[in-house]
């Protein structure tokens, strides 16, 4: 039974990690220009990763 007291917070923590990752992608604007990102990935000189200035 005690194992639950360790595993439960651990798995909630894993879920929270996913949530934080999602919030981070929102914050750095990875959903700001879906069409542009889809196009940029085709050319090396355009593929500059996510923008960092907002």
């Amino acid at each position, binding site marked *: *039974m005690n194992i639950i007291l360790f595993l*439960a917070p651990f*798995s*909630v923590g894993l*879920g*929270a990690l*996913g*949530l934080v990752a*999602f*919030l981070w992608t*929102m914050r750095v604007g990875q*959903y*700001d*220009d*879906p*069409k*542009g990102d889809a*196009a*940029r990935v*085709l*050319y090396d*000189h*355009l593929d500059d990763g996510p*923008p960092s200035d907002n």
Partner: protein
Amino acid sequence: MTRALAISRDLEAFVRRDATGTGRLELLVTGARCAACIGKIERAVSDLPGVAGVRLNLTTGKLAVDLKAASVEPDQVVQAVEALGYRASLFDPTEATAAQDREGRELAVALGVAGFGAGNVMMFTVPAWAGLFGQELNASTLTVMYWMAAIVATPCALFAGRPFFRSAWASLRRGKANMDVPISIGVLLTLIVSFSETLLNGRHAYFDAAVTLLFLLLIGRYLDHRLRASARSAAHDLLVLQAPVAMRVHNGVEQGVPVAQVQVGDQLAVAPGQRAPVDGYVDSGVSEIDNALISGETALVAVGPGARIHAGALNLTGRLVMTAAARSEDSTLAAIARLMEAGAQSRSAYVRLADKAAALYVPIVHAAAALTFLVGWAIGLGPREALLRAAAVLIVTCPCALGLAVPAVQIAASARLFRKGVLVKSGAALERLAEVDHVVFDKTGVLTEGLPRLVDAPAHLVALAAPLARASRHPLARAMAREAGVGLVAQACVETAGQGVEGLIDGRRARLGRAAFVGVSPGDERETELWFGFDGDTKIRFVFEDKSRAGAAQAIADLRAQGLEVEVLSGDLPGPVSRIAAELGISAWRAGLTPFEKAEAIDALKARGRKVLMVGDGLNDAAALARAHASMAPGAAVDAAQNAADLVFTGEALDAVPTAIGVARSARGRALQNFTFSALYNLVAAPAAMFGLINPFIAALAMSGSSMVVLLNALRPGWRR
């Protein structure tokens, strides 16, 4: 492209600079669609001296340019983009930052949090459910599980519920109850009851229900928001279209100024290919102007000194200098923008299907819950059990089926219309479209192709005049050149702005242009015509007409079959309008209407109780589009008309209109089916909760089950048309 004559303009007003002198400039670029476009535009702009950084957002069409110091002229950026063949307009720096989708961002974050909560709370509630059925889970373990569920679910529910709480509070303060009121009360009461039950070591706690309910509802809410997000800023984009720069002539020097700063009496230069920035009178220069966007007129108008020009008129052939007779905000365009705003306001008063359902649902459910509590207490259940049952009523009669009933159907319907080339901008638009009983068409560009075509011209005569036509950039001459195909071009051509073109064909002097230019007395000015003749020879008259769109007659017949009345309101002259109306079998038509008369005609129809669908493409239609019950615009329409319209159809064929109406009606039918299902479900679930037959497991099953049924009904095939 059209800037050959443009002198470097002073556009410093459009740059946002910070203290160090570096600045940022934003442009709206239209026409960029692919990765190659991004590469071309970004390279061309970053090659300019003084540009520190450049990034094109392909989704919004915005080009952000960072400037080093004061070394680069904004106009060079515009010219660099336009030299590549894209249209670029400068954004006013005050407008540029305003257009951020804050609501969508908040909904997405809330959805993420609710999804996290709903997923993780299950770890603790699934064992708890097992405990409900006598599995080996003793009472103290059950309580531990509930506490852990509470730790995960409560913060998530409180955070993810904020959009609902806020909207419910705003609605209550106005003395009304929208759908968010029962949602908020349900969630909060569920959390409170669950806490008290857990504290008292009770068997029923509904933490999972609270956060799952919000998750399902947020899906519906986010879908609805995405549908509306494209339809934000009709009036705002109209102002960008208005070409924010006017060329002011002062002591012989041209200087670019924001249109908003133009004063009455200023002298302004309008180069060929540009639009008149404000209303005014021509001082000098001769040209032809295209009023199609302003009035829907297809015939080009010759203008000379003294002629009146409306803001937005396209200058075609010669450079004009005009005196401003109105400021920007008093000009025709701005008046249309105001009419559009008024229309948008009257539309926001429209009560949506879901809110109508909420108006019925809220009092009934709340009365049932209150009754459960009071009666339960009265018959001796005790306040704790009575409150638990009342909360169960609120949970199982959960409005998530209701909250999903409409958005799910509307998303499915818009996806279906999207495959048929029709873009739907809001769910409310589909609901209004389903109620339409009267269709009003604009003529130019909607019922017709919006391009002049030669009519009844013998091929040998066209071939005779074609060499001159090929030498001209005039729209009518181009139509003639298209008809004639590839061939010789006349020698020594001289084009006289607003008159015609003169040149040598096989050594003989010939002219093509207006009647007076060719040497005949002007005849019927109502027809779009071009005259041609060799020096001292007979003159030939060519007549142009705007042909009706392919399949227009069939589309009109389909609309009639759907029980709709069809009418044409056009700004063009009676001749062409009556011809097209007769060709398509439409008996009700009016011609020569100003944009304001069109809007009034729509209002008059509304006053007679008609629900009008307006289909139009020009600036002159924008006000009517915004005021009609529902509106559609073709993909070739001006931005302002596309923004004012609820739906935009991108294909060439007009049958998109009856198709859209058919799908909208089906969607309405399905939304009503979903409501019926929800009502039946509640009719069973509410009494079960009142008699205490519900436990957390059944509540979770019922909630997701009813949502699934509603979703599947939205997704099932079998749409009309």
